[in-house]
């Protein structure tokens, strides 16, 4: 017994996958009807939800060969083209009908070490004569150009009640008697991450023939619960020593704790208390700023002391009136990160089109461009190949942007259906935009023309 259980019990067939039925059906349907020209899939979702397993299981079920590239491989343009490019166009040697190319961790194409990697991936996708599956944790971290040519498949967090039977099954195979409560605790502690649950089971059960609650080793991702406890303790009457001990035990850095406290400060009932708490928090925040600016981590303790003792002092044991919430700024940051990614990629594209450096474009021309677009959005959607997200940056109206883009796409389709239009690609109006839509057989926005290449 020396194999890591997460690997040993990695599902070999689609039917063995836990949860995510809709995603698995979507994958199977995609594979069954796959022809050269079908869009690749991008499987995305949190760690441990079965993305990589599903891709391999699909290939196994259909007896396709697999070629996997992940972040542990260098992925420069040259290397991706050599490996995946060859894999995607040459016929398979072993006689299997197809070869599935799995580009794992596609959201982690490394900036400098993998120069040109994203472009190469698109190239490979465009030319591929073989099915391709990309895998990522977050769809928004994918280069936009990659995202638009793929069909997304969402993998959701696996529910605890689906995890429990899987754990029980493993216990049976390993000959371990395991109490139901212990299994449920493992499943619930895993936060939707099946692999984490299996790893916890493995780590707890090694060398045992029977597993009870007290055998569970306790450290799995419990930082949340203690950070909850810490925030709750701030509103109660607690001694300084106890509060400082809790801060030390919370497995998070002061900048994280600060955001948790900030988000729950409004539970103070009295405006003077809020003012006082905010003052302490802002002073703590200064220390956090100095810490990072100077890389002088000793200052962290002043941040901790000021925010914890300060906010507790301001709260004066007034009790907690409401439910402790995780920091909302994380959500905001996530959204703004996405906005930023959209903006940067659009700026770079426009910069190429207009031959103006991105910075200058943003500072000197953006207002003018926004006004022009506001005036005649459809034209720019067509000319610059904007999608709804891009357009929204200018119009700041999500609904309207989506509508306009849909309308333009509809018109485009109709125009292409008309028999005499645009038979030969050369007759297209000269446009600097690469990859304008020309082929009605595909819905892809950027690389419609690949059968012609």
């Amino acid at each position, binding site marked *: 017994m020396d194999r890591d259980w997460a690997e040993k019990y990695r599902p070999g067939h689609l039917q063995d996958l836990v949860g995510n039925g809709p995603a698995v059906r979507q994958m199977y349907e995609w594979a069954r009807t796959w022809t050269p020209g079908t869009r690749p899939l991008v499987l995305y979702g949190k760690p441990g939800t079965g993305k990589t397993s599903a891709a391999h299981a699909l290939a196994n079920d259909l007896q396709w060969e697999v070629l996997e590239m992940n972040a542990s491989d260098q992925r420069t343009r040259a290397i991706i083209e050599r490996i995946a490019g060859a894999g995607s166009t040459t016929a398979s040697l072993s006689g299997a009908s197809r070869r599935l190319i799995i580009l794992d961790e596609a959201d982690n194409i490394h900036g400098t070490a993998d120069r040109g990697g994203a472009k190469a991936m698109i190239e490979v996708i465009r030319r591929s004569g073989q099915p391709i599956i990309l895998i990522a944790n977050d769809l928004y971290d994918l280069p936009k150009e990659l995202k638009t040519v793929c069909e997304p498949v969402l993998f959701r967090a696996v529910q605890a009640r689906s995890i429990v039977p899987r754990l029980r099954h493993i216990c049976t195979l390993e000959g371990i008697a395991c109490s139901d409560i212990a299994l449920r605790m493992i499943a619930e502690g895993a936060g939707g991450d099946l692999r984490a649950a299996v790893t916890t089971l493995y*780590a707890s059960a090694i060398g045992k023939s029977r597993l009870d609650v007290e055998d569970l080793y306790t450290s799995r991702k419990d930082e949340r619960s203690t950070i909850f406890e810490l925030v709750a303790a701030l509103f109660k009457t607690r001694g300084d020593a106890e509060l400082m001990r809790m801060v030390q035990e919370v497995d998070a850095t002061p900048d994280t704790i600060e955001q948790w406290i900030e988000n729950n400060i409004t539970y103070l009932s009295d405006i003077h208390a809020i003012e006082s708490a905010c003052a302490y928090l802002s002073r703590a925040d200064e220390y956090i700023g100095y810490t990072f600016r100077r890389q002088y981590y000793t200052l962290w303790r002043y941040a901790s002391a000021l925010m914890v003792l300060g906010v507790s002092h301001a709260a004066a044991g007034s009790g907690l009136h409401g439910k402790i919430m995780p920091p909302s700024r994380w959500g905001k940051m996530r959204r703004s990160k996405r906005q930023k990614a959209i903006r940067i990629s659009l700026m770079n594209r426009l910069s190429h089109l207009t031959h103006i450096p991105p910075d200058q474009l943003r500072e000197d021309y953006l207002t003018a461009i926004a006004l022009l677009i506001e005036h005649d959005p459809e034209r720019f959607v067509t000319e610059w190949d904007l999608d709804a997200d891009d357009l929204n940056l200018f119009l700041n109206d999500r609904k309207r942007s989506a509508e306009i883009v849909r309308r333009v796409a509809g018109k485009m389709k109709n125009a292409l259906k008309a028999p005499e239009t645009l038979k030969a690609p050369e007759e297209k109006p000269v446009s600097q935009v690469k990859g304008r839509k020309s082929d009605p057989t595909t819905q892809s926005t950027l690389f419609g023309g690949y059968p012609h290449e």
Partner: protein
Amino acid sequence: MEGDHTIWIEKYRPLKLADMVGQRDIVMRLQSYVESGSLPHLLFTGSAGVGKTTAAVALARGFFGETWHMNFRELNASDERGIDVVRNQIKQFARTAPLDGANFKILFLDEADALTSDAQAALRRTMENYAQSCRFILSCNYSSKIIDPIQSRCAIYRFRPLNKEDISEEVRKIAERENLTVTPDALDAIAYIAQGDMRRAINALQGAAILSSHIDAKMVYETTSTARPEEIEDLLNLAISSDFEGAEQVLAAILHERGIAPNELINQCYRALVKRDMDRALKIELIDHLGETDFRLSEGANSDIQMEALIAAFVLSAQKHT
């Protein structure tokens, strides 16, 4: 002791899990891994000197015996930590077969939170694809600095700061082996200095042992350049009771006669203040003064001027709050 110049933290690093002091629950679990010959990927979190590295090395010895070096590799922050190392060196080590009949090798990545997130990302499939031939032990101060996909692959063990009993037990053990006598108040002093960090405790003991084989608290404070807790209390009492001149004299004695570094003094005042039973608003204000002074010193300000200003600020705050 004559002629023995080895560093005690290495000389007395426990070779077997069973010899480790503290972290009882963790050590028991790890022990059962050795007994059954199985090992999941592990993530050790905790502050310095609480036994993370010792546990990793002891695990390797437990699994591989005398030839543990052949199947164990340690990478720490002094090694190159970029994505290329993960892709080349680590992958190379992980995928080659274990030697000497072992079932797998162990790669110990110390200070894994210093890995860039790109490097961490490059690690995740390596951990899975070569799990057959290599198990990973990662150690870090805060698990929140380790990306979720890696946490998902590891059994997480949190090492706690060692308590006074653990520290004293180890110090007594070493003292016996080195033929030292250590007075009870010296044990207290060592525990005070250690702050849960065994390395610091053993260093303090070795430092004092240079002076004499009979160790008392005074020697411990002297060789570690630490003010005695009573001196700190003295300083704080005087400042809080608005005796500026008295406080200044104690300050001068600590800094100039005893030669305690201003940083160390600030550190000790901080610890004393957090624990001190006193008006809370004043306490927080004084801690803020400490922080401000610490920051200014780190920026290169003159320590004599800043420390005196600190005491003055203490006195003013104390007057305001009475």
